[in-house]
């Protein structure tokens, strides 16, 4: 039996009308699938990170790679951000004679927001991409299969040490960034804006509270987990040779950056609500 011309036309119209809806449906379902995969992967890795056996040698090695070797990039970012922040606050503050608040606002901005977020974003580029590329290369060269045949779980041997190192070292890096950021502001304030150096530091120190520092460090720990988890996840899923490894690195950076910014907003709202 052949379809009549009318049936054929309505079938074509149907498919044309439905096409955008199908596309939206596919995209939404794909998004949920990806969220599910990330959640399941994160659950397995975090479980491995808090239960024995934990490979301390690997954790230390990763602390060195993620933490120590990131110090220059975090330090440089912090000093320039502190300096630019001081200039901007001075310019804005001078509009209503509030220039004297430069040290207070710099220290608040650095410790609560810019220190953790910018250190997180810089490390999303340096660390997340590095982890994704390393694990991706291990995946395509069958090293992860080799681990499995040697009865070693990648979650325990590869991913958990990186996540532990990310969670432990990012707060330390942010603490360093806080100090260097404040010093960046101090340099500009003293060198270009005629502030008294010791007064600037005294104002900063007396204004900042433990809560300001703690809230930044808690954010940093969360960002450290996100950065390393996204690197591990994308690396683990990479396939198809060098192109696949490159794609994994890009996806890890983009995913980590977006998640850092989103979780920063959520954490800030929680801190505001609980008065931290």
């Amino acid at each position, binding site marked *: 039996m052949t379809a009549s011309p009318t049936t054929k036309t309505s079938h074509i119209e149907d498919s044309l009308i439905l096409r955008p809806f199908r596309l939206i449906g596919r995209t939404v379902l794909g998004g949920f699938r990806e969220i599910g995969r990330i959640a399941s992967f994160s659950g397995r890795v975090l479980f491995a990170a808090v239960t024995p056996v934990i490979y301390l040698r690997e954790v230390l090695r990763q602390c060195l790679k993620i933490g120590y070797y990131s110090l220059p990039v975090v330090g440089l970012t912090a000093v320039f951000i502190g300096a630019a922040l001081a200039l901007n606050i001075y310019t804005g503050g001078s509009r209503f004679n509030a220039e004297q608040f430069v040290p207070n606002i710099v220290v608040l901005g650095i410790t609560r927001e810019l220190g953790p977020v910018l250190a997180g974003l810089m490390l999303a580029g340096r660390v997340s991409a590095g982890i994704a590329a390393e694990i991706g290369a291990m995946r395509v060269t*069958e090293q992860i299969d*080799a681990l*499995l*045949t*040697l*009865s070693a779980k990648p979650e325990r*041997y590869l991913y958990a040490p990186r996540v532990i190192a990310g969670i432990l070292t990012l707060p330390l890096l942010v603490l360093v960034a806080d100090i260097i950021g404040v010093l960046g502001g101090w340099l500009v304030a003293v060198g270009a804006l005629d502030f008294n150096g010791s007064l600037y530091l005294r104002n900063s120190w007396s204004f900042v509270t433990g809560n300001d520092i703690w809230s930044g460090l808690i954010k940093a720990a969360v960002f450290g987990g996100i950065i390393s988890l996204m690197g591990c996840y994308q690396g683990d899923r990479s396939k198809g040779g060098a192109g696949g490894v490159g794609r994994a690195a890009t996806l890890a950076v983009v995913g980590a950056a977006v998640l850092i910014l989103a979780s920063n907003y959520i954490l800030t709202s929680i801190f505001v609500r609980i008065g931290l």
Partner: protein
Amino acid sequence: MDFSTKPILELKNVHKAFGPKQVLRGVDLAVAPGQSLVIIGGSGTGKSVTIKSALGLMRPEQGEILFDGERVKGGKTLDTLRRRTGMLFQGGALFDSLSVWENVAFALLYRDHIGRGVAKKRAIENLAKVRLPASAADLRPAELSGGMQKRVALARAIIANPDLIFFDEPTTGLDPITADAVNNLIVEQVKALGAAAVTITHDMASARKIADEVAMLHEGRIIWRGPVSALDKSGNAHIDQFVHGRAEGPIQPAI
């Protein structure tokens, strides 16, 4: 050698597909303890998929895998299989962030939690078995030639005295002389351990040297199996074409 005893490894009606592409269409295979079976077949016929399915690195949609008579279902049974098997990957798959000795002793260090001193000593002993000097122990895999990397991978595969060893294209990328040396080491070490071996290869020289029996995989099924001595008088057109490396015949070239 008598291979009539209970198989150490058995694959029954194993099917595996990747999307619409059906790679394995019912593979049946049994390997007796101490037996060396070589699986030959063209590119893309599913040789690697067969051994990866046997090792639990891929999950077949249908069929079962038995190790030492017990069905491998994941969890404890899979762990037992992996503890009692060794695997030499095609590219070596050495961990490039670790030194040569840490690669060789990986199972001792991270699975059996043996101290580093003892593990290093055993790694050096196993390096000697594959004719590598102790001075290679502290090098990184990237500092070794392809042949040396294969030997390190062999040392890693045998260090835990496995009952069954898988070899995935052990001579790929090696010159004929180095390939022959690797084949000799495989035969020597497998015999010394008394282990069974499953090797997949395109290399007929390697197959003739390593095998007690040869099986041919074609279009996802084992189409012929017999002793290595019967390879030249199998009467099977597929085997004849493969053994003589002819483009004309029932097997279509993979281009």
